[in-house]
């Protein structure tokens, strides 16, 4: 800035004042926002061309020219595009359609760090023409997209197809500015540079974020020197943002998270909260549940339910198999699903996922099997107790009714049945047997049940009730004999 002022003829001391003035202006939040939205994406494109006769020697230059022209005419100011041939050192990887680790790219080619996006375009010859492959590295978040690929018949069409693929792989970026409860406000990079919808020059290209889109929030943390290391960029796990409203470059999003407070890191000069558009690439994602204390141990037989955002009812998806896996298919109507992991009656986790975003997703959770086992034992004992109490009460009522009606033989038969039901002591012995045969964690729950049910047992399985009924019957018999 100072150099620029100097070329404008601004005297030395005054330049400093102007720098301060500009800094104040541009540092103010309002102007910082507008910088983000007003600043185009700086996109560096590396072109890798197969050395074949069918690919003209001027291909790189042609592509450079044509791509920039397409970007200009189609996207306007949204992209600041640079195109060049890829460095020789990495061509091998790209020909193999491999994505080098982002950190190694940035280390090897520090200049890339000054860009927002690195697009890699690989053009090779195939049987009937050419194949164009494009992938994108988002430099800020260190995330590679999947390779997009298309066959082209003639060289004349290669540039157009390349540009289309670049738009398809391009992942727009947003900056999170405000977080409130389960709502987030974010602003799209270069959002103010998009042509208005009414514009005749507005093209339908997939570089925007619109209502219904899903974003992956990412925390980007710089060190004191302003450098962002490989550990400095982390997606917020099990959290996605669902765009509910979009006005220009402003996005109002709903937070879907497995955590109560996913955004527990405050924004600061060194911490940036970003959000990246998610485009599912696959038809399914395999969910793998593991024991968080023992990652080698799969969690088998856990129930997975799915609910669409805003829906009231969950749908049962299935159970994890012996490897702890369950396949979740993508859903065009609702790209994001909230998965609920249950074991028995206990909810263990809430996992927002985008089926198709990744091939496999691993979720470490608490191994709940001990509690489930105890739950099963206690449930069985409870139901047995209910049965026993109900049958005793019904039998007792019937016995009394028979005695009152003078049907003493029937009363005696029913009393015999009552006597054959399990007694309090026998039931307690049953509980004790279950305790003895169980592991420690299970024992605790059964013991708790035993304590809870003591009052019930004392009241409803009291042996004196049987004796009372026997006494009633004996009296009735004696009275009958006297009258007879």
């Amino acid at each position, binding site marked *: 800035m100072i150099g620029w002022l100097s070329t404008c003829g601004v005297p030395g001391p005054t330049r400093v004042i102007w720098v301060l003035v500009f800094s104040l202006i541009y540092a103010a939040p309002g102007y910082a926002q507008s910088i983000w939205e007003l600043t185009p994406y700086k996109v560096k494109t590396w072109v890798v061309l197969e050395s074949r006769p069918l690919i003209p020697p001027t291909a790189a230059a042609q592509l450079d020219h044509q791509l920039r022209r397409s970007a200009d005419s189609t996207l306007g100011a949204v992209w600041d595009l640079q195109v060049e041939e890829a460095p020789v050192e990495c061509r091998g990887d790209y020909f193999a359609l491999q994505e080098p680790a982002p950190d190694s790219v940035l280390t090897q080619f520090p200049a890339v760090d000054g860009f927002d996006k690195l697009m890699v375009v690989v053009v090779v010859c195939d049987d009937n023409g050419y194949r164009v492959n494009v992938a994108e590295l988002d430099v800020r978040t260190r995330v590679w997209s999947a390779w997009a690929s298309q066959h082209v018949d003639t060289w004349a069409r290669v540039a157009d197809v390349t540009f289309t693929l670049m738009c398809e792989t391009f992942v727009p970026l947003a900056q999170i500015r405000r977080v409130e409860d389960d709502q987030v406000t974010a602003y799209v990079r270069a959002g103010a540079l998009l042509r208005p919808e009414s514009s005749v020059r507005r093209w339908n290209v997939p570089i925007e974020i619109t209502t219904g889109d899903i974003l992956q929030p990412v925390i980007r943390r710089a060190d004191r020197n302003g450098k962002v290391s490989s550990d400095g960029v982390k997606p917020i796990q099990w959290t996605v943002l669902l765009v509910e409203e979009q006005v220009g470059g402003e996005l109002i999003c709903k937070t879907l998270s497995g955590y109560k407070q996913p955004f527990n890191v405050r924004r600061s000069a060194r911490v940036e909260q970003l959000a990246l558009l998610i485009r599912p690439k696959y038809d399914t994602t395999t969910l793998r549940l593991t024991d968080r204390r023992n990652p080698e141990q799969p969690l*088998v*037989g856990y*129930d997975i339910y799915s609910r669409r955002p805003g829906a*009231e*009812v969950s749908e049962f998806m299935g*159970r994890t*198999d*012996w490897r702890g896996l369950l396949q979740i298919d993508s859903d065009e109507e609702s790209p994001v699903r909230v998965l609920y992991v249950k*074991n*028995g009656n206990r909810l263990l986790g809430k996992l927002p996922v985008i089926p198709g975003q990744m091939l496999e997703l691993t979720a470490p959770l608490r191994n709940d*099997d001990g509690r*489930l*086992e105890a*739950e*099963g034992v206690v*449930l*069985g004992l409870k*139901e*047995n107790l209910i*049965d026993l109490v*109900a*049958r005793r009460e*019904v039998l007792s009522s019937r016995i009394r009714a028979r005695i009152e009606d003078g049907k003493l033989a029937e009363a005696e038969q029913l009393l015999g049945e009552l006597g054959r039901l399990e007694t309090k002591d026998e039931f307690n012995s*049953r509980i004790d*047997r279950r305790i003895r*045969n169980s592991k420690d964690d299970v024992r605790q729950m059964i013991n708790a049940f035993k304590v809870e049910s003591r009052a019930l047992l004392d009241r409803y399985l009291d042996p004196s009730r049987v004796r009372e009924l026997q006494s009633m019957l004996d009296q009735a018999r004696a009275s009958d004999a006297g009258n007879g």
Partner: protein
Amino acid sequence: MNNDSRLSVFGVRLRPIDARLGRFVLRLMGIVLLLGNGSLWAQETKIYEQEPYDVITLNAANQGRILRVMPLDLPERRVVPSSNPNATLRIRLMDNPDEEIDVAWGGIEKIDLFEDRVLRRARQLVRSREFDDAFEHLGFLQNSYPNTVGLEETVDSLLFAEASALYRERRFDRAILLLNEVYQRNPNRRGLVTALTRVSQALFAERIKSQDYRDARRIVQIADDQYGSNLADSVRNWKRQLQSIAENVLGEARQYSDDGNDRAAYVSSRRAYEIWPDTPGVREMMVNTARRYPILSVAVSQRYAPSNERPMFNWANRRASRLEYRRLFELTGVGPNGGIYECPVGKPTIADDYRGLSIQMLDLGGDSAAYIGMAVSRRLLEIANPERPAYDPAWAMVFRSLDLVGTSDLQLTLRRPSLTVQALLDTDAVSGRVPQLRQAWQPYTLDSSEESPDRQRFVLNPDYALVVSTQPREVIERDFDNPKQAIQALRSGEVDLLDRIFPADVEQVSRDETLVVQPYRIPSLHVLVPNQNRPHPSNRIFRRAIAYAIDREQILKRDLLGGFELSGCELISGPFPLGIASDDPLNYAYNTNIDPLPYDPRHARTLIQLAQIGLEVAAEKAKQPKPQLDEIVVAHPPSDIARIACNEIVEDLKVLGLKCVLRVLAPGESRPADDAWDFLYLDYLIGEPLVDARRLLASDGFAGCASPHLNLAIRRLDQLNKEADAPERLRVVHQICFDDMSVIPLWQIQDRLARRKIVEGVEQRPVATYQDIEKWSLRLEK
């Protein structure tokens, strides 16, 4: 005669009459008599259903009055008038039973006893051919007045008359039964022998015409045994006739034999033998042809149809699948250490640490061992592959890798120790993707060109790797309409073996010295499987209600066992076998601390209401319509045990006001293909509880139990490292299954087969019907 005016019983005074009045009086007397007899009102009440009374007719000096009196206390109920006219008979009028009146014998014209009136009525009914009514009257007399004069003759008359009527209607079977009964009662009855001859002849002619020679022979046999010389001529004629027919058929057999058509020769010679066993030369011909082409005929309780379902869940599949294909490991017995398995493709060795299994393939010459090794390897990889239809997760969990060493030594490595690897490999021996190799392990082929509603023909596969020359060349399975017919067919030699005797018939079959009854080693287990996709059966309170609502003890003891005690047939409280005896190694999984739920329909009703409330609350919460229980559909396989049991189960449920319908599965179906059922009667086999528990109970098993507690307990079985822990873990499964009523346990039955002595080589206590059929032979010379 006492002229007391109180004797004006009916208030009718008889007057001197002219002709018209006379007719009126006669009609009136008829009415009076009929009233007295009560038979006019037979259309409302039959005479024997009325209050019994005797009728005394006084003499003319007493105006011929008719007195209805309480049954007279006469010695042996015989009317023996006193010679002393002044001697009296003590009576009590029907209208005034409390008062005793003495009537002088001199004033009595006649006494008509109640039973005599009943007998007269019975005779009228016989004459008017109302046989059922007549039978009722006579039955009443036989029970209550057995000494009625003329009773036995009347019974004979009834039987005879009905037999005649049946003869005219050409219902000879029934006619002969009745005549036979008359013969037993009174062989000298006039006209009986003629009637017997006529009916027997008609019956015999009918059988000959329909070529039912077996029955024709039976008629001859009965006639010969029972009627002695009375039908001697007829019997001689019939025998000659049968022998003549048999000789013709024998001639055909000889022709077939000369032409080299062994099968036809055997079939014809056997047919000739069945027509008339005493035909000269027929026995030798049959024995000789049987040696060249033995055909085993089996009466089956359930028809077979090929199925992809595991044989353990279907009786017919368990039986006949052994004919169609060999499995890699076949359970053939139970020893002190558990199941005994046979590996038909080679010699297996389990590693000491249970982490490996090797199989040395059979060498049948040439490169056979190598081919077998490759085919078996392919199969093992198939069932470990989730992408394949044959995928078995239980196997995939333990299988790590395999190696074919030197092409004939298959080495399997497991991920973890497995105590039950043989039970896990209860699967087809070779992959179906190699048809030629698979064919070598198919002992018999079901001949689908033989379309018959009641029989199926399995033909020995000449390319079968383990074929033995003496084993049956064909197995013909025949199903019968009911168990009695099957037993009859076995006795008569129409079939050689009965795969499953109905339990109530075991006693009587065991007494037949011509037959051998053998128990199966492992009992079948019978449960109701709830449909987890329907709201009510998937509710555990409802399932418990159903368990309380069924009187299992009654059904087992009365309906299935017929009141007999039969070892190995008991109620169960869980999904595992109780075993045959208390020391049966197979019962290690059974939790003996758990008794079966008692029959308590009252409590069941309470639980049903509780369940309905619970379902309605859940439906409201899920904003779904409340589930209504319109009717309960109980599906069952087409076997006699299932049919009878389910009929009784339905009756028990109806007592609770539940509307129920039965649905019969098609042959081969172990479960309905759709969801239109609530409970399924399942008759299955547990060979190895550690493995079969998952196959039956897991959420991806046959019963598809949804209980997470049960599924956890089953998963814990997969993690066993020590054999000693297995019983405890399995008993926990039993307990949870009981608490949850994941399947509603009914009973276990130790099934029995019966065979004729000509069938040799049958295992003493087989696991499957056709176990070791390669060692079977037919010794017709016996």
